[in-house]
């Protein structure tokens, strides 16, 4: 099992765009820091804004970064991992080893998840530190539809915010994985993922959270949005089941 992990991680980081993508993401985090610092104001949604302080700063960073993660970084990583390797034929070399295909698949999935979760964790730590360094210090802060959270409660809130964001991102990985597995080549997979994420809005307004990640999570924590968690959970589970079934039954020689 350990060797499968090493092999998968090596292949992911051998692709130059993984490193470049992560560096660009970190640069964007820095840029977002500058942006929020120069304004001192964060937005709950298009209408409502709030002054930032050391306790409430962290969640507001995902407002713009979420778009980059959901529409650019994750599809790029997932398509390369789930489709690029297979359609180029390189993955046949892995499959010649006597390993269970389901196990290979789960590790592949887990590696993608770990990278994204690590990025989110780094973002949370950096932005919390940043908030404490540069924004005015307060002892209690309001959040969207919530009044007066103490220091620890406020950190709990922002941590919970990032956990929900992580769940949404995991559902993008799951959805992207199943689309990439079914589609014949990388170009079509990529555009199909984007088409799916955008097209879902025409299906129902509940899917808006892929576009407005942070706004929707504020709604969830403010008690105004009850569908997000259920939808994200369903998308993740259904995609994962379809994906693992297709992966095991697939004709790899084609």
């Amino acid at each position, binding site marked *: 099992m350990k060797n499968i992990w090493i092999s998968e991680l090596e292949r992911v980081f051998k692709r*130059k*765009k993984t490193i470049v*993508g992560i560096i660009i993401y970190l640069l964007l985090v820095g840029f977002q820091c500058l*942006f929020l610092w120069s*304004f001192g104001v964060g937005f709950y949604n298009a209408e409502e804004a709030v002054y930032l302080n050391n306790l409430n700063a962290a969640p507001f960073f995902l407002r*713009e970064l979420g*778009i*980059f993660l959901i*529409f*650019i*970084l994750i*599809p*790029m990583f997932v*398509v*390369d991992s789930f489709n*690029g390797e297979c359609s180029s034929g390189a993955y046949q070399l892995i499959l010649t080893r006597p390993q269970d295909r389901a196990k290979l698949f789960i590790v592949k999935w887990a590696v993608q998840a770990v990278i994204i979760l690590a990025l989110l964790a780094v973002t949370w730590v950096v932005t919390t530190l940043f908030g404490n360094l540069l924004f005015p210090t307060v002892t209690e802060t309001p959040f969207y539809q919530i009044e007066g959270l103490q220091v620890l409660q406020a950190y709990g809130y922002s941590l919970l915010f990032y956990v929900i964001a992580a769940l949404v991102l995991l559902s993008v990985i799951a959805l992207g994985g199943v689309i990439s597995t079914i589609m014949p*080549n*990388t*170009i*079509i997979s*990529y*555009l199909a993922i*984007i*088409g799916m994420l*955008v097209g879902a809005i*025409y299906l129902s307004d509940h899917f808006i959270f892929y576009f407005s990640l942070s706004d929707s999570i504020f709604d969830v924590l403010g008690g105004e949005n009850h569908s997000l968690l259920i939808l994200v959970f369903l998308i993740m589970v259904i995609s994962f089941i379809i994906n693992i079934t297709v992966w095991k039954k697939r004709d790899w020689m084609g």
Partner: protein
Amino acid sequence: MKQLLLSEWIRLWKRKTTWIAFLSIPLILIAAAKYLVSQNNVVSTKLPQYTVAWNFPVMGLAEMLITVFQGIIILIVVFSVTEEIRTGQIRMVLLRSYSYTEILFAKYIVIIGVILLFFTVYFIGSHIVGIIFFPMVDKFSLFYHQELATPIVGLMYNVRFYGIACLTAIAIISVMFFIAVVCRTTTAAIGVSIGFIIFTLGYPTMLSYFHELFGNELFVKLYFTSITMIQFEGITRILGESGNEAGWNYSVIAIYISLFTVSTFIAMNKKDYFI
């Protein structure tokens, strides 16, 4: 050169994706029509946002121009440039007595041709769908126009609108073509292309926070340095009665086209010919 263009044209139509893109036009039009029918219930009949048979070609294009059309341009450009270069298929053509520059130039022309054809089919289709779904009124209002328009004036307006939309599409093709030549993998090419679209939609919004800092005139100019914003709002402003911003918007489009075609030319001359 004629032979080369012909061969690129045939190769483009050999792909299923090109056919699927064209066959999806009726679906896109019906989806847009359904959405606009539901919008009509909440919009006053006097506003230019109210859709009638004669302005449906414009109303149905506005939203699709920055989503579906952009997607189809990315799809076609990446398939015929990045994919062919990186998998080495292009070597088959390079064996003949054509230079790398000539081949890519032929591709550029052919892609523009396909997109123009796509616009033409969409234009005709949207008139048919418009007549089926929407009321055929005698007079209706246009964006940034005081007087009401007759169907004939509306048709002329639509033709001009589609003409400018084609120009912006050529600018987008130039950008995507540059990205497709430079990027080493297809996923990177699509990622950067989508990043470009999101960026050009995003920075004008960010600029609007500084609206007062710049003053109105400079702000409008900066706002319309973004090609997607020209597609989204600029075209109706160009065709407005005052037409103040027409000159600026046309020059931005011209700069995009020339800047990115020249960059593509420089980039591909620095590349290894023996891929």
